[in-house]
Structure formats: C-alpha cells, structure tokens
C-alpha cells in the first residue's frame, strides 16, 4: 500500500497516519515525506516543556480540550525517554490524557527518544509534518522534561510553552536551565500551591533582563530609550501566566496567549525566524546525511586499526579523522586548512 499510504494520510485516515508515524520512527519514510511536504505548513505547532512533575501532560490535555471545544483538531506527540540500558521505554503520558479518549478529533502518539544521534528533532519534525498533512490544525509536542533533548525538540515548535511549578528552585535555576531563552510563553502551573506568586515574580523579573524594550521601574512599565538610530525591531515579550490545569483554570488565557504569539510571528514582515529554522534543519540533515555516507564509504576495517594507533599514541584522534576525510574526498584535500 506504499503509494496509497500518502493518499490515505492526506485523506486523514487514522490507521494510515499511525502506520506512517511508525515508518518515520524507523527512518524509512523519506519517499512519503517528500510527497507530503507540499501539503504541510498549515498546522500550528506548540511545544510544551518543563521540569518533570510540573504538569505538562495535564496542561496539554487541558489545552487540547480547549481547542476541541472550538472545533479544532489536535494531534499530540508525547515524548518519553528510552532506557539507555535496554533500549526499551515505558510511555505513560496517555494515563493523564484519558479525558481525550474517544474523541476522533484528537490523535495521541507516544514517542520514545530512542538512541538517535541528535536525530530526535528530525524525527519530531517529520512526525509533525505527517499530522500537518493529515489536516490536524494544532500539533502539541510534549517533551521529556529533562536535559538537552528539550531544547532540541522545542526548536521545531512555532510557539514554545515552558511550564514551571511553584517551589522548584530559585530564579538563578531558571536562568541556568536556559528556559527563558526558549520560552515564548511561561506558565506557572499548580498555582493554587504555596509559593506560586513568588515563582511568577521571579520569572517576570528575570524576563525583564532579557527583554530590554521595556522595563519595570518601581512597579511602572516604562519604554527603555535607545540611543542608536536604528529602529528597534518589535520584540515578543513572553507573558507569565498562571494555571491550575487539573481544574482548567487559566487555560483560555493560555490559548489566547498562543494565538497572540501566532499573530506576532505571522505579522513579522519577512519571517526571518522561519528562514533560520529552515537553515538549522537543512544543516542538521546535511550533517546526518554526510555522516551516514561517510560510514558507508569508509572501509569497515579502518576503525579498529585506527583505535590501535590512537591507544599506542602513534596518532592523535584528529589526525586520524583528517586521514579519513582525505580518503573519502581525495580531490578536495587542497581545501584543508
């Protein structure tokens, strides 16, 4: 059903979508993706990240229900970690997404991070495109909740929501984690708990440092003056919202903030960010394609002898790699340097 699969996905056939997602995960979907690409670009992709236990799954569920109430279709990609020891995974996000069961306007897919060498972002992008081509209007990507893979996945989203919970560290923790750089919207979930106001305040004051178009001075918002003659580019200042996802509190406001960010992104004169994202994706794909090619072209018996030489201190690792490159591209050695 190879050719049909593309057609079935475009028609929104759920089993075909599920099947193609499996093929995407197995890195064998390129012929399909090439055809589907033309039909993508309509879905709005929202990434949801934050520490484990901050309530991401519950928030995703509440947001999805909000979109469903508006008649919008929603796909969810819920990422959980692969065990580095066995290669297996327990994917348990569906437990908290129980309320969405039985709604044919929602499609939930659990995804294990697997061992892909930085390939997680690519797989996620490809899965998003399958949902996009199948006609889903929103794609919500919920990340693992720890580590660098967060940032990798979140870069594929159009709007990134960072979820915090009260009492999860001081404001310096927030800077260290780098979450302020990636957040388009900050959410303090579980804000019925003690310490919520403090967390909100800490996040707001950290944001001011990073967004110099306006500043709070004794509680008043003031425009900062710019000495350079260049016009100040309009800047998105991430709002800090408060929610109690289990009670649906603050969810309409969150959805509104997503729409505001969407309007902001789409209102940018030339979507420079879209170009940067396309560039990042292109370079990533080039890296992995070249790497794959190198592995295929290098004689299979060069690695072990090279290791022997390195361990015997006969050659340093970079020189060995340079030799490999020279072997692979003998005509291009003059460009070294």
């Amino acid at each position, binding site marked *: 059903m190879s050719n049909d699969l593309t057609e079935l996905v475009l028609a929104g056939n*759920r*089993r075909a979508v*599920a*099947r193609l*997602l*499996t093929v995407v*995960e*197995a890195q064998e979907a390129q012929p399909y993706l090439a055809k589907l690409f033309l039909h993508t670009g309509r879905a709005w992709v929202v990434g949801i990240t934050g520490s484990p236990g901050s309530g991401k799954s519950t928030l995703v569920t509440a947001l999805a229900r909000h979109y469903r109430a508006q008649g919008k279709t929603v796909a969810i990609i819920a990422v959980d970690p*692969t*065990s580095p*020891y*066995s*290669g*297996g*995974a*327990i*994917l*348990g996000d*569906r*437990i908290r997404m*129980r309320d969405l*069961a*039985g709604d044919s306007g929602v*499609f*939930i*897919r*659990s995804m*294990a991070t*697997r061992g892909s060498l930085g390939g997680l972002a690519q797989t996620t992008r490809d899965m998003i495109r399958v949902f996009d081509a199948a006609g889903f209007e929103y794609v919500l990507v919920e990340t693992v909740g720890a580590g660098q893979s967060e940032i990798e996945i979140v870069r594929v989203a159009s709007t990134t929501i960072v979820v915090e919970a009260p009492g999860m560290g001081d404001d310096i923790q927030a800077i260290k984690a780098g979450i302020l750089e990636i957040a388009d919207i900050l959410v303090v979930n579980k804000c019925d708990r003690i310490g919520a106001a403090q967390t909100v305040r800490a996040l707001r004051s950290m944001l001011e440092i990073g967004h110099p178009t306006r500043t709070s001075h004794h509680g008043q918002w003031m425009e900062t003056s710019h000495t350079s003659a260049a016009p100040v580019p309009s800047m998105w200042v991430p709002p800090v919202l408060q929610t109690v996802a289990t009670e649906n509190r603050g969810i309409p406001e969150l959805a509104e903030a997503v729409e505001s960010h969407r309007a902001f992104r789409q209102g940018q004169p030339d979507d420079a960010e879209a170009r940067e994202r396309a560039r990042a994706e292109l370079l990533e794909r080039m890296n992995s394609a070249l790497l794959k090619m190198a592995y295929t072209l290098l004689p299979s018996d060069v690695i072990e002898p090279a290791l022997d030489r390195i361990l015997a201190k006969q050659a340093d690792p970079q020189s060995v790699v340079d030799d490999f490159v020279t072997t692979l591209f003998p005509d291009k050695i003059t460009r070294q340097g």
Partner: protein
Amino acid sequence: MSRKPARVLIAKPGLDGHDRGAKVIARALRDAGMEVIYTGLRQTPEMIAEAALQEDVDVVGLSILSGAHLTLVPRVREAMNAVDLGDVPIIVGGIIPEVDHAALKAHGVAAIFGPGTSTDTIRDFINDLTAARNVE
C-alpha cells in the same frame, strides 16, 4: 540490535484497580528493549482499540483480575476489529481460570499468562509474535 523495537500496549479494561501486575510486565518488557505504552486503569474496550490504533502497536496486552474477562476480552477484540485492527494479536494476563482459556482462545486471544509466569516467557512470546508479523 533490531532497528524497530516492538511496541506493546498494556491496558487494564474494566473496573478492577489492581495494576501491580500490569506495571511489572510493562517494566519487564521495557527491560527487554520494547516500547510499552501503558494506558492506566479503567479503560473501555473502545479506548483500548483507539489507543492501539494511534500507537500502531504490534500486540495488545490486557491485564484482568476482576473475573470479567469473558465479557471484556471479546468486546476489546470486537472494538479492535471495528477499527481495522483485526490483525493485531491480544494477549491476556491476570487471574483467568483454566476452564475459561478455551473460550478466550476461541475469541482470538493469542496467549494467556497466569500468576507465576516468568516475564522471560512473556518476552519470548511477544518477540516470536512480532518476528512472525514482520515477515508477513
């Protein structure tokens, strides 16, 4: 290492709240390198069928300790058939009296694993099952 880990849905249909067995199995299958989608408690047959469809699983494992297996299992099978998952096998674990095994197998259950079954046995069974499916 196989390229594609087996994907297994572990679900608890009906009203019983004893999920320790299901969790032990989920963990053992993860340790065997499988991707286990765990749905949690109190799933209806339709919810299980829909989850199996969306997750494109190779096999569905049902854990039942309520005694309602003769009612629930055929309903899950029907719900799965209704969404075109007739080819996805079901295995059952939990408290299933010997006398009911034949009836369940008549409803297309691939295997029944009672208390005391080694997790290795279950792992090997699923591996054989998915290997056979991948050849098709």
